[in-house]
């Protein structure tokens, strides 16, 4: 409402600035237009007198200038006498008034309604960030915590709160950084270290990097019975090709483990894969899939990624069957990584260029998955 009042007020002031001078009727037609020119020339004449007095100009030059200016003065005087003057005409007045009263608001409002968004409120960032948390988008809430942390970077609890949020939103790098900050400020805690390692692993498409491994090792050393860090450490050993140590790690992990625990099946499957040798098709078994249902979302995603990246690496280095290539494409499509799926398709097509039967198999799968193959 205030907005419309202010709009009306501005329009009113604008219209008045036209109407008021128009309405000042009866004002004497003072200050003939010639007056202004004449004033200038008269002043020029006095200026010459002053200059002459001060000796800045030679007397004969002064005389010549005076004649010239006097001639101009006379011309200006004549002109102002002759200047055509008309009285204010009623028609002109009415046109002008109509212009100010009608055309002005009409043009302004019509243009504004075409271009403006009167219902759109201001949204200063601060106001958006301090508004009640209910009904706010997660983005706003995250931005709010981020702002808080930018101002108070030593707030360990803040980092702890935001770290898992980042992970669940698919920002593992940010999550790992947040965990690292929480650990730096509040000291190491095994679950943070584990989650940081997991975030780092996710950030590297399932590869347990040296940093991640270090985090898991620290977590394991602080809490030797914890399963999760040891689980990832075993995966790391397998990824490094240290099959023997990996088998040992899985065995010790499974030893005395509660058979019903969701991770056990996955661990067994990993172990079996290692024992069968590297060429075995490392796909998830039914049990694995069931196990993953019970795992947390992150664990599940991690497991799938770990397997996919293992397969991708092997296929790219050693090659494989058409079925394996197809499976990798499928996996990427399921994970939503179409780009990688397309790359896989291209690689598979290259690998089977001389084998029309397998090539058509790959092409069929690709077209079923909706991959372009270009």
């Amino acid at each position: 409402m205030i907005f419309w009042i202010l709009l009306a007020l501005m329009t009113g002031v604008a219209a008045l600035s036209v109407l008021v001078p128009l309405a000042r009727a009866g004002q004497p037609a003072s200050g003939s237009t010639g007056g202004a020119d004449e004033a200038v020339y008269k002043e020029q004449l006095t200026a010459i007198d002053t200059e002459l007095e001060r000796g800045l100009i030679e007397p004969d030059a002064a005389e010549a200038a005076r004649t010239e200016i006097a001639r101009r003065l006379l011309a200006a005087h004549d002109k102002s006498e002759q200047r055509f003057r008309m009285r204010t005409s009623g028609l002109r007045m009415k046109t002008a008034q109509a212009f100010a009263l009608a055309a002005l608001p009409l043009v302004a409002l019509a243009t504004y309604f075409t271009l403006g968004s009167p219902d759109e409120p201001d949204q200063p960032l601060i106001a958006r960030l301090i508004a009640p948390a209910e009904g706010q988008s997660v983005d706003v809430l995250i931005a709010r915590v981020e702002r808080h942390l930018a101002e108070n970077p030593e707030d360990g609890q803040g980092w702890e709160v935001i770290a898992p949020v980042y992970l669940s939103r698919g920002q593992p790098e940010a999550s790992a950084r947040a965990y690292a900050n929480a650990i730096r400020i509040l000291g190491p805690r095994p679950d943070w270290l584990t989650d940081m390692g997991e975030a780092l692993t996710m950030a590297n498409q399932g590869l347990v990097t040296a940093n991640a491994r270090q985090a898991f090792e620290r977590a394991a050393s602080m809490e030797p019975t914890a399963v999760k860090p040891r689980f990832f450490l075993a995966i790391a050993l397998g990824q490094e090709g240290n099959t023997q140590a990996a088998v040992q790690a899985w065995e010790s992990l499974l030893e005395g483990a509660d058979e019903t625990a969701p991770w056990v099946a996955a661990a067994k499957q990993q172990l079996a894969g290692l024992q069968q040798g590297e060429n075995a098709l490392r796909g998830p078994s039914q049990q694995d899939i069931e196990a993953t249902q019970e795992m947390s979302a992150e664990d599940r995603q991690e497991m799938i990624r770990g397997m996919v990246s293992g397969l991708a690496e092997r296929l790219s280095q050693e090659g494989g069957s058409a079925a394996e290539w197809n499976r990798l494409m499928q996996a990427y499509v399921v994970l939503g990584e179409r780009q990688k799926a397309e790359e896989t398709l291209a690689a598979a097509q290259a690998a089977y260029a001389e084998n029309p039967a397998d090539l058509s198999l790959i092409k069929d799968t690709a077209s079923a998955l909706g991959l372009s193959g270009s």
Partner: protein
Amino acid sequence: MIVELGHYALVLAFALTLVQCFLPLWGALTGDDRLMAVAPPVSVTLFMLIMISFVALTIAYLTSDFSVLNVVQNSHSAKPFIYKFTGVWGNHEGSMLLWVLILVFFGALVGVFGGNLPKDLKAATLAVQAWVTGGFILFLLATSNPFARVANPPLEGADLNPILQDIGLAIHPPLLYVGYVGFSITFSFAVAALILGRTDAAWARWVRPWTLLAWCFLTLGIAMGSYWAYYELGWGGWWFWDPVENASFMPWLAGTALLHSAIVMEKREALKIWTVLLAIFTFSLSLLGTFLVRSGVLTSVHAFATDPARGVFILGLLVFFIGGSLALYAWRAPMLKQGGLFAPISREGGLVLNNLFLTAACAAVFVGTLYPLALDAVTGEKISVGAPFFNLTFGPLMIPLLLAVPFGPILAWKRGDLLAASQRLYVAFGLALVFTLFTFWLWGMEKVLAPLGVGLAVWVMAGAVSEIVTRVKFFEIGPKRGFARLVGLPGSAWGTVVAHFGVGVTVLGIVTASAFQEERIETMRPGDTVEVSGYQVTFDGAAPRRGPNYVEEVGHFTIRQGGVLVTELDPSKRVYTARQMPTTEAGIHTIGFSQIYLSMGESRGDGAIDVRVYFKPLITLIWIGCVIMSLGAVFSMADRRLRIGAPKPASRRKTAQPAAAE
């Protein structure tokens, strides 16, 4: 609400310019006092409305209101406060709004302080100004609305172009715009005079303060822009003949010519046709500059967003205003009466010479700027016209002009005596000779032109001073009366002296900084020392640092002279995180009028880094000279004679009134 109020104020201002375009002009042509009386109050209302609009946009920037598209595209919540503020005009839409703000500001100035103007001229001038304003508001609303909203506001903006994140941006564009756009008012005066057939000596007098004001700001704006480029771009140069620089330099040259020819028109009523044409040309060049910069024809720091639709629109405005005013000129000019006559050797002759050289120089810059563009458009061939072209064309034109500068103010009006004038300049000539020989003695014959350049600069400076000293016959009447006479001289006389002296100072800076600078480009490791002009510059190492919205690699350098510590400098290379854009921050230390300039280049790994080290003798004189020049304009504006017919204080009005009514 604030944003939308700003938007409405802009739209309302557009509607109001439509009123202002027609009513006062109609009044001026029919002699209707009441219609003419509309112009001044409306000019003030227009200013207020655009001000509301500008403030609204500023508030959106300061509060990081990302529901405004323009803020999203050009701001970032982590940006320091000052750059949130300057960011308002650090982009296309905002800077065009500033353009319009300055247009209406000059309109309002004439509306409020133009009391000495005849009503019809004032009304017509304000109407023409409203045409220009209306054109630009239409441009804003149609192609680059700063108040466009975003339905789902993001939480962060794209940040401001990092090169523009500098205190220079706070000062350079507003100054430049006040100058650039300020010439719109002389344009409006010229067109109004043509419409009303009122081109006479009095007109020149009325226009002079406005020309001076615009010229003063344009001078400062160009100088500021030059200094900014000098320390921000890290190339060590202060003028690059970049098309964008030329775009602001051309109106300056034309404006300077206008300033001088208007004097002839005012004093002798000669050069009327030419002066009016110059007034039109000066603003046309400003418009052309805007077109070049904004249409995307030129790509540079200034081409914030290039959009063909905008280019076509500005081209349309350009054709309308320049074409319209020149058509009007072609129709009216033959009706103008010839003014006073003068001999070639006279003050008028000197000013004509000045105009000749300045416009020729302007034409040279024009050709150098537009020829490559035209060639590219016609044949697709890309050529680059750089400093060599301008040095060969602009330079030779400036030398005779500078040689003639001291003569101009000394020659008498109408018929001058060159011999007598020379006699009054023998001291200046002697000083120039002494300095030339001294420079030769100091530097030997290796640089022949530089000592001559120094002599030229001294000639201009000493010439300016000796003009005023001989004018009051200082040494003939004794210092006591001499000082009294100096103080009593009109402001415009002082303005001439100060401005011409400033020209000399700038020339001196240009000559010494270009001819005698020492430059070393080295790959330095921590602990390395290079020697430049007797200063030992030691690189102590570089370290990363984090700013509010950038990260930088800061080098630390110690500068010693003969083992004595002079200063420590920390130049840096920044990367602005939001746009991943690198910039250079030069390290500059001023010694007297000279500067040591350090700029960091590529990092070579293992702590080694490319460093450019310059010693630039007397370089600050370039900008100091510009400041002195604009000070000259201030002196000239303070001339009480410019306020003739201005509303007088109440006590004096009684006596003044009958005089005016005679």
